[in-house]
């Protein structure tokens, strides 16, 4: 019985982590191309509320005309598409401002995150107390019955499956394909990418837009799945966490996702034990993920990692690098003058 609770909790971690996984993976993609999109939090909120409003509107418009299940599906689809569109638009503002207008990516991103948040609150006010569409619970037949892994991985909704698929596809794309090599070179040394025939700025536009779409999808996951209501306090702040985890995860999709689940697990842990602890301590425990990230980054980014690498034999280097390396793509945030 205790096992059951544990398994359900782990499944809960996966569920609650899904939106952040999507957002963090999206931001990883953009930053791999050299673009920092600080607007993640605002976009998450804005796309979440957009998905919610759209889905409700579609549901209201279609209900009665067709099967309820189908209506829900279409509403969710519409909501997700709108959310992704919001993400794409936001990312385009960042890239256009940076590439064409030579503005600071950090400045634009910062303003966009506030604007996104404010817009979301404004648009969402009338919807605060409304219920949303029912969660699209989609357990996968057969796989869901596998002991242990079944409930954890295969009894979720479409968003979670999408997030895991995105992880696999992204990992494969970045590390196993030729276009992935080009992507990495654009973020590391655009001059080389350009010399090899890549259109650096166009690549930045495209990948940042895809990243934006993923962030938007993450927002949709909040209001169409995780909560099925609009609550800006549940959504807000997670974009910043996603940004931090991209850094913490060393811009590697697998590490990033593990980082997200780690943070989600810490949160679940705190929630489940908080009743037995002094409320003051609970407050500090909530800070644990951030403190962990700060300390880790401090140790890794200072010269401590380099010193460690010098001591160890060369054969260990690739493994250690993959595990601990936290260097940003060298060209992150820099404009590239093409031609």
């Amino acid at each position, binding site marked *: 019985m205790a096992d059951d609770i544990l398994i359900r909790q782990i499944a809960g971690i996966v569920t609650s982590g899904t939106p952040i996984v999507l957002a963090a993976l999206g931001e990883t993609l953009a930053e791999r191309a050299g673009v920092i999109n600080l607007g993640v939090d605002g976009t998450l909120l804005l796309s979440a509320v957009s998905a919610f409003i759209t889905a409700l509107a579609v549901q209201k418009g279609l209900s009665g005309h067709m099967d309820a299940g189908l209506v829900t599906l279409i509403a969710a689809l519409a909501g997700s598409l709108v959310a992704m569109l919001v993400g794409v638009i936001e990312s385009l503002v960042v890239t256009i401002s940076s590439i064409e207008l030579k503005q600071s990516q950090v400045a634009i991103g910062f303003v966009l995150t506030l604007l996104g948040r404010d817009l979301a609150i404004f648009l969402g006010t009338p919807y605060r107390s409304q219920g949303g569409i029912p969660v699209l619970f989609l357990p996968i037949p057969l796989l869901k019955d596998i002991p242990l892994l079944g409930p954890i991985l295969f009894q979720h909704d479409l968003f979670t499956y999408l997030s895991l698929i995105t992880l696999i596809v992204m990992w494969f794309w970045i590390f196993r*394909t*030729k276009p992935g090599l080009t992507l990495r070179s654009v973020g*590391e040394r655009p001059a*080389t990418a350009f*010399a*090899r025939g890549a259109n650096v700025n166009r690549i930045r536009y495209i990948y940042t837009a895809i990243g934006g779409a993923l962030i938007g999808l993450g927002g949709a996951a909040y209001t169409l799945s995780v909560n099925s209501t609009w609550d800006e306090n549940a959504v807000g702040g997670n974009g910043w966490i996603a940004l931090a985890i991209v850094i913490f995860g060393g811009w590697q999709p697998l590490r990033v996702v593990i980082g997200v689940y780690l943070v989600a697990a810490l949160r679940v842990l705190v929630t489940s034990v908080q009743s037995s602890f002094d409320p003051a301590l609970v407050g500090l425990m909530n800070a644990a993920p951030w403190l962990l990230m700060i300390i880790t980054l401090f140790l890794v980014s200072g010269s401590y990692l380099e010193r460690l690498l010098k001591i160890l034999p060369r054969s260990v280097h690739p493994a250690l690098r993959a595990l601990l390396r936290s260097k940003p793509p060298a060209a992150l945030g820099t404009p590239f003058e093409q031609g």
Partner: protein
Amino acid sequence: MHIELEHITKRFGALCANNAISMTLEGGQIYAVLGENGAGKSTLMKILSGYQPADTGRIVIDQQPIAFNSPADALAHGIGMLHQDPLDVPTLSVLDNCILGLPGGLLPDRRTARAALIKTAAHLGFSLRPDAFIDSLTIAERQQVEIVRLLSQNARVLILDEPTTGISEVQKDTLFRSLKQLAHDDGLIVILVSHKLEDVEKLCDQVYVLRTGQIVGQERMPCPVVHLITLMFGQHLEPTTRIAAAHGEVILSVRNLQVKDERLTLDALTLDVRAGEVIGLAGLDGSGQQAFLRACAGLYPTLQGQILLENRDITPLSYHERLHCGISYASAGRLEEGLTAGLTVAEHFALVAPKGARVDWAQADQAAQAAIAHYKIKAQPTSPIETLSGGNQQRVLLALLPNPLKLLLLESPTRGLDVESARWVWSQLLERRAQGTALIFLSAELDEIVAYSDRIGVFSNGRMTLIDDPAHMSIEQLGTLIGGKTA
């Protein structure tokens, strides 16, 4: 393969970097493009390798005139360039670097690429580890990777820009052997862009010499080196009036100094500089003179050895601490490392004169005005520094130097200046010298070195040769030393 460059011309504003340059390049030959810094070599090669279009003129490959619109385009036509800092991606492996940019398909064919890599490398006598990461390789190894890569993409022309700076003798031999093989056995065109006469002698079949944007000579090797030097540096033996000055006590004492920068390690250097003495450091870019100068300034760490200022050991002192000891340093990059774009002239004067917490703007303005008048700077105290011409910026930089100074370290004090401004700058520097300041400067202009130095330090590949009596040295002899051949 047969390439003709016909009347290639390229201008940057008022500067004519390439002036109607024409060249013939035949397969199976190794060419050298020789010239001083600023002669126009890199511009020409950038045009040939597709980085820049020429203003006028054309490139004809095998009777077909071709215009490249990108470096990748040029490589598709068989022209590949190995840069001085090879264009690779540090975080990728050797194998991945070679795969990057290959046409075709979503999935890289790692096996084929690996086999091709190993085969080509073996053919050239390189030993490469395909899975090593680029940022763990030496410059020589990175060059090898790039050459292998270019060849695997069917480059028929290899342009190498200063490839031998920062690689060891053994690595150089390997490189040259492979280049000879590529040209003479495999029929490629190899172009070596260099100033190193020793290398040109060892490697090349034909030489083109550039000076101030034009071809001034085309020779077949072997050819007397002196002749090449004359072509490179020109025949200006300007009569110089060197003011003999009495030298004071030893101010700077460098003992067994070893410095390391990204490219090379300087040999142990020992030097004594007296008050009022002017030491000129000559040598080609990357030979160590800049590293030495910066080490004296405290910007580069020293591996071993000592630096003494008036018998006081300043080796452990930081750059800022040395500023307080009466040492000043002026970098060559005026705007990148010296002046701050966005600040006005007066603000610069305020910045270097910190007396008290408050800025006395009236005083700063006055100081700026005084400097403008004295140094004949064409600007106002309120002019943003980036709006000044290079010459005027240099004047401001000099004006900002404190007075009096014990030691003044200058990188290329007259770079980019017209003759009149340069002469004027030196009159100011000589005034300081008359007051007892010791000067160490480096310059790419040989006549400047010869005209003003009491002693000359010639740097070549990290080693300094001290010339105590430059009065009896000719430009040719100096050029030879610089080229790396001991006199």
